[in-house]
């Protein structure tokens, strides 16, 4: 289809404005006025409606299809939480209202949501205090790393390095580096699928500020030697950072705070059903142990003796502001409603079903696809197209062929330590019928890799455009009309 600028018809209008009866202002100085003609679309309202409706019909999302993008947790978010976030009392609240003298009473509901969600996240993760300010998972990581730095500065520790396993999400090293730390990678034990204790022991020392761990990790495996890791870390006054990207696998079963983690961030959009990424905005609350609470960002919501709430800013050791106002409040509100709706039992069932669904896929496909860790997984499973490479079929071909079958491709080529990786995360919100259809599609593709590999290499065929030249797109970026 053509883009909207190509549909322009000279002189066509969507609306006709009456003649202005306001006298023209002073003419704009020549140096401020544009030298070339303004390129605007000239279209009728109907042209525009049809254009964008057509675009929306080509959109692919969880509301239309299965979206097993590993590590991203593309689960379905019930619409009722959207409705709650649009309640006028929350939606129309001005963020400066609590700052006005006497107006604090008008914002008690919103402040209570912040206060109570912090308490709920503490209970879920086993931490002592939370901030809701970070506006994305990655910003939560950076906030966590700044707290690490504040802690070591407070103690006069000279620390220079953060340790990160080689399977970690790319945000971990970038957050640590942005906070000023040198990053050192620690190898994964290929047998167990999680961090190698020996490698960790030799990498860790007096200079180690923190160890960042995701549990379960990006291979979908639960890191079970966490107590030994913690012992090692405590010996060097190294803080343990829990990347909550995969918290949705362990709700009600495992709390990072119970096994010595010092700092936690939670991706509300992954675990607690708030909007994702560009459709967001996001939220990445950070939780800490009691001894780190003094470093949390400001403001904080505190409860007065009379059970009312107020904003408090007087924390001299705080790392300061990380977000305007109070973070993405309406996103946090959705998560609050989600947690209250499901309750403790419901949240546990979220994780149980997410793990069950991923294992169902792993065990239904491991005969046809190489599975580096075939025995079981948590909420996502990592397969590899290694067997198919003998027929010159790679992970990318399988991913593209899935589009023709009506499915969003899984994450491909991540984690980096698995060759030709396909990382599949079905989430708890999909039915067995959907999983079976996906499994059938994957089996069909594996068969085609044997009988007709050329067809897979030409996929996708059913999309508005076929196989894109990703190399050319990266080398010769051209994004302006």
């Amino acid at each position, binding site marked *: 289809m053509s883009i909207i600028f190509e549909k322009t018809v000279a002189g066509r209008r969507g609306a006709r404005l009456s003649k202005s009866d306001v006298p023209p202002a002073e003419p704009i100085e020549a140096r401020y006025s544009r030298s070339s003609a303004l390129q605007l679309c000239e279209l009728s309202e109907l042209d525009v409606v049809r254009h964008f409706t057509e675009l929306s019909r080509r959109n692919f999302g969880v509301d239309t299809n299965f979206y097993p993008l590993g590590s991203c947790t593309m689960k379905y978010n019930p619409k009722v939480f959207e409705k709650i976030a649009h309640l006028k009392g929350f939606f129309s609240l001005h963020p400066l209202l609590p700052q006005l003298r006497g107006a604090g009473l008008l914002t008690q509901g919103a402040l209570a949501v912040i206060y109570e969600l912090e308490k709920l996240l503490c209970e879920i993760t086993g931490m002592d205090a939370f901030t809701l300010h970070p506006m994305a998972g990655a910003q939560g990581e950076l906030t966590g790393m700044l707290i690490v730095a504040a802690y070591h500065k407070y103690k006069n520790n000279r620390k220079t390095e953060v340790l990160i396993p080689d399977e970690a999400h790319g945000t971990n090293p970038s957050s640590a580096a942005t906070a000023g730390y040198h990053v050192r990678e620690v190898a994964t034990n290929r047998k167990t699928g999680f961090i190698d204790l020996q490698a960790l022991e030799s990498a860790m020392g007096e200079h180690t500020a923190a160890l960042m761990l995701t549990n379960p990790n990006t291979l979908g495996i639960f890191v079970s030697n966490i107590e030994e890791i913690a012992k090692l870390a405590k010996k060097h006054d190294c803080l343990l950072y829990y990347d909550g990207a995969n918290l949705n696998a362990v709700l009600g079963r495992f709390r990072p705070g119970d096994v010595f983690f010092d700092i936690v961030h939670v991706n509300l959009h992954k675990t607690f059903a708030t909007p994702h990424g560009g459709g967001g905005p996001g939220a990445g609350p950070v939780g800490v142990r009691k001894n780190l609470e003094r470093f949390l960002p400001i403001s904080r919501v505190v409860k007065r003796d009379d059970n009312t709430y107020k904003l408090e800013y007087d924390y001299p050791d705080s790392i300061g502001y990380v977000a305007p106002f109070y973070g993405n409040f309406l996103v946090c509100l959705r998560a609050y409603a989600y947690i209250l709706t499901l309750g403790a039992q419901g949240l546990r069932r979220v994780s149980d079903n997410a793990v069950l669904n991923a294992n169902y896929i792993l065990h239904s496909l491991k005969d046809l696809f190489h599975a580096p860790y075939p025995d079981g997984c948590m909420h996502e499973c990592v397969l590899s197209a290694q067997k198919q490479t003998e027929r010159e079929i790679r992970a990318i071909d399988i991913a593209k062929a899935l589009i023709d079958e009506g499915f969003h491709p899984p994450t491909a080529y*991540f984690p*980096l330590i698995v*060759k030709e990786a396909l990382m599949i995360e079905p989430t708890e919100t999909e039915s067995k019928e959907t999983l079976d259809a996906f499994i059938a599609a994957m089996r069909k593709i594996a068969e085609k890799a044997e009988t007709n590999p050329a067809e897979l290499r030409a996929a996708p065929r059913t999309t508005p455009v076929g196989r894109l030249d*990703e*190399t050319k797109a*990266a*080398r010769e970026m051209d994004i302006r009309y």
Partner: protein
Amino acid sequence: MVSEECLYTKTHEWVRIEGELAVVGITDHAQRALGDITFIELPQLHVEVERGKECATIESVKAASDIYAPISGEVFEVNASLEGAPEKINHDPYGEGWIFKLKDYNRNHLSSLLNASAYEAFLESEA
């Protein structure tokens, strides 16, 4: 595919001695694993690189990776033509796809590198 004229690291760089200079690139195995290369950040001229430390970055459609200095030395020349045509690394990793040249390099470091057959054996063991 390996070249008999080169020495190798376990992180998939190669070194070839040409007179006073040591030429460095990434192996055929490495370019294959990376896929189509889209961008390379070359080392700076005249800086001292240290064996085992990252000295350049390479990006493909799949991932970004570091290139480690196989031996210590001073960067004498970089293959600036790669900035406009990084695909040379895919097409000819041991030839036109060379990345940088070192002078005054540490000769003692050469003995720690793998020869062609040892590197091939290493690749087999990793597979």
